[in-house]
């Protein structure tokens, strides 16, 4: 199965990449603008609160909009099977990272000897990237083609899970 038009490729790639970039912008706090609702002023990039709270949500959306538009444009130029494989790789890497890092922390906490490297996010990320590269290399092209449009809801759902996880402090106070 291949996308029937450039518009469909652009739309699907935009949705998928926006979800990922938005989650990253939220967690790393990368707003394109900061809005100060009490005084009704807008600052470029991240600025601390002044005269009341600062709002970064609009800024995160704008940063993600620029990033996702760029990725979606590239998606319409690049061969479709490359895009499909790249998305599969990204999803597998994210899943592998979550599993590997959780396992690493589990082992670290229960080990009787000091295993400090297990706490490194970079180590888990490297392992995840290697695992994802190997898996995505061996996944048949037909699977990729069949799965490709479904990423349009799977990736946003995954992004929501991550965003929800980072909000847990509100529910555990």
């Amino acid at each position, binding site marked *: 199965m291949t996308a029937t038009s450039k518009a469909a490729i652009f739309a699907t790639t935009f*949705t998928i990449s926006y979800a990922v970039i938005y989650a990253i912008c939220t967690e790393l706090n990368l707003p394109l603008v900061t809005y100060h609702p009490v005084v009704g002023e807008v600052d470029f990039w991240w600025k601390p609160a002044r005269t009341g709270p600062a709002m970064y949500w609009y800024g995160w959306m704008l940063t993600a909009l620029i990033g996702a538009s760029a990725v979606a444009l590239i998606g319409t130029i690049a061969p479709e099977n490359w895009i499909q494989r790249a998305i599969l790789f990204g999803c597998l890497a994210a899943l592998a990272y979550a599993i590997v890092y959780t396992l690493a922390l589990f082992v670290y906490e229960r080990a009787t000897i000091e295993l400090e490297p297990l706490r490194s996010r970079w180590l888990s990320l490297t392992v995840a990237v290697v695992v994802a590269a190997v898996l995505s290399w061996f996944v048949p092209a037909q699977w990729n083609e069949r799965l490709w449009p479904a990423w349009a809801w799977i990736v946003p759902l995954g*992004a929501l899970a991550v965003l929800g996880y980072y909000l847990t402090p509100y529910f555990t106070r």
Partner: protein
Amino acid sequence: MVFWTTLLIIHGLLAVALLGAITHQAVAVWFPLRSSSRSFVARFRAVPSTSYVWAIIVLYAATFVLGAWIYTQYRFTSRLALEQLRFFKTVGIFELKEHIATIGLIVLPAYWAFWRQPLSTDYAAARRQVTLFLAAVVWANFLIGHVVNNARGFGS
């Protein structure tokens, strides 16, 4: 205050319309009618799902824009009160609502692509899945908005 309350009511009414439209479409696409029953449930399932696409896109966008506008007022009025009252779960669930709303908004391009005429059989499964996902998003945000409004909303 009257201005913001009016906006909130319009936001709520648009959300109700959106909820009805997306629920109709999701039910029609997941449980299409195969017999000619005339019951209420059968009629609910029998709607032509393609005719809802643009209504859902426009309603979602309009509801989102109004919500994003009202949010500016919420941020330094209701939210501060909720924090002072230590209603952290309510604040947290509203934070989740803003993310859910954004994710729903950015699913709309793919939703539009999958529902484009003539309907592609290649996208039949994705069309159903994305519609269901969008319906879940709208329901979640509607219920969260209702809960938050009960905590510190209209008339409080």
